[in-house]
């Protein structure tokens, strides 16, 4: 269970948001909405522990995430604006190396399966340089399938994805929720999810 209490975010001299509190139970998806510059990305980075809130606290199963450190990071998967996809590496290498860096190495077969599942069949061995933006994003999203993490934090996961890929991704998220996982995501469009979805507006 992830719990945020009274989070405040200060950027430069401006307070982006304050008093943000929520509680996320297993099997739930939290949609974070708000205008550009309302601090959606800042909130997600805070929830991951990448940046410190100016006030307030984030707790995972009751313990502050700063104390849990690697124990929390082992439950967490963050997918930011930048997909961490290297142009010099092939799709397959990218997928496997990301998983290794995250501390969850996978064998080649499961990496290929994951890439195929996200519709990259036949492109596994192409360098990411030649892939389109949407395909690169899908390479980045294979981490969802490869790293077995409880909490997914996704920043604009739909960017550059086509309709089929969106449906595909929603299926993946629904399966994760059905398995007791948690998802926090920001998106400008509604996701056709079947699981339980809660909303949080930042203004």
């Amino acid at each position: 269970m992830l719990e945020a209490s009274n989070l405040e975010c200060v950027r430069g001299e401006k307070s982006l948001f304050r008093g943000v509190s929520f509680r996320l139970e297993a099997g739930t998806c939290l949609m974070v909405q708000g205008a550009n510059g309302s601090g959606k990305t800042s909130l997600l980075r805070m929830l991951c522990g990448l940046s410190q809130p100016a006030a307030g606290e984030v707790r995972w199963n009751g313990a502050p995430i700063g104390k849990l450190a690697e124990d929390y990071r082992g439950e967490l998967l963050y997918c930011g604006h930048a997909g961490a996809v290297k142009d010099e590496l092939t799709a397959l290498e990218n997928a496997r190396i990301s998983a290794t860096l995250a501390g969850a190495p996978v064998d080649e077969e499961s990496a290929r399966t994951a890439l195929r599942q996200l519709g990259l069949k036949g492109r596994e061995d192409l360098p990411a340089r030649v892939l389109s933006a949407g395909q690169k994003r899908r390479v980045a999203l294979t981490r969802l399938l490869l790293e077995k993490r409880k909490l997914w934090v996704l920043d604009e996961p739909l960017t550059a994805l086509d309709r089929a890929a969106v449906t595909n991704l929603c299926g993946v998220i629904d399966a994760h929720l059905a398995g007791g996982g948690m998802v926090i995501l920001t998106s400008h469009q509604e996701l056709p999810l079947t699981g339980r979805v809660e909303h949080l507006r930042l203004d």
Partner: protein
Amino acid sequence: MAETSILSTLGAVIRRDLLLALRRKSDVLTTLFFFVIVVSLFPLGIGPEMAMLRQIAPGVLWVAALLATMLSLPRLFAADHADGTLEQMALSAVPLGVLVTGKIVAHWLLSGLPLALLAPVLGLQFDLPADALGVMVLALLIGTPVLSLIGAVGAGLTLGVRGGGVLVSLLVLPLYVPVLIFGAGAVESHIGGLGATAHLSLLAAFLALAAFFGPWATTVALRIALE
């Protein structure tokens, strides 16, 4: 996290950085070429008198090695920072220190090690005797990892900062002074007949100290840079 998995992750990070360098060879080659050209410029500036060149050779090679390492530092984390890999590393279940250590080792394999291997060839330009060349290589092999370790802290601190490339040299070069003194001193005192053991063991002590503090300080610096 089990020890074996930490070691295998460390190996994987090193392999990854080497693979990336292999796919983009120009970065590594530029550093080496810079080293060669700086060293070769000195005789042109000072004159071809062999006695003089022999005397300045250790210092010249070491200063050039320092500068070449500096040149490669801004790239150490910049690419990973730009494409988001660094964030992933900071959020990994593997401690960031382990991943950073891997990156530093890879940096040394791609900058310090080739410099050390290239040094004897350049030493010949300066008419250094063969045994002095051996000491030179040994000193570079022990000293250049220290340069990578200290440099990584500077690279982490200046990550994403305006004018970071120039700034990193201002921060890091003063800290390189001991390595320069004992690295060049090892060769000089060997030529002078005093033996290089004392110098080399002090260099090794610096290496131990830097290996202990370097990755930790780099980790702190990177977490600050990511905030």
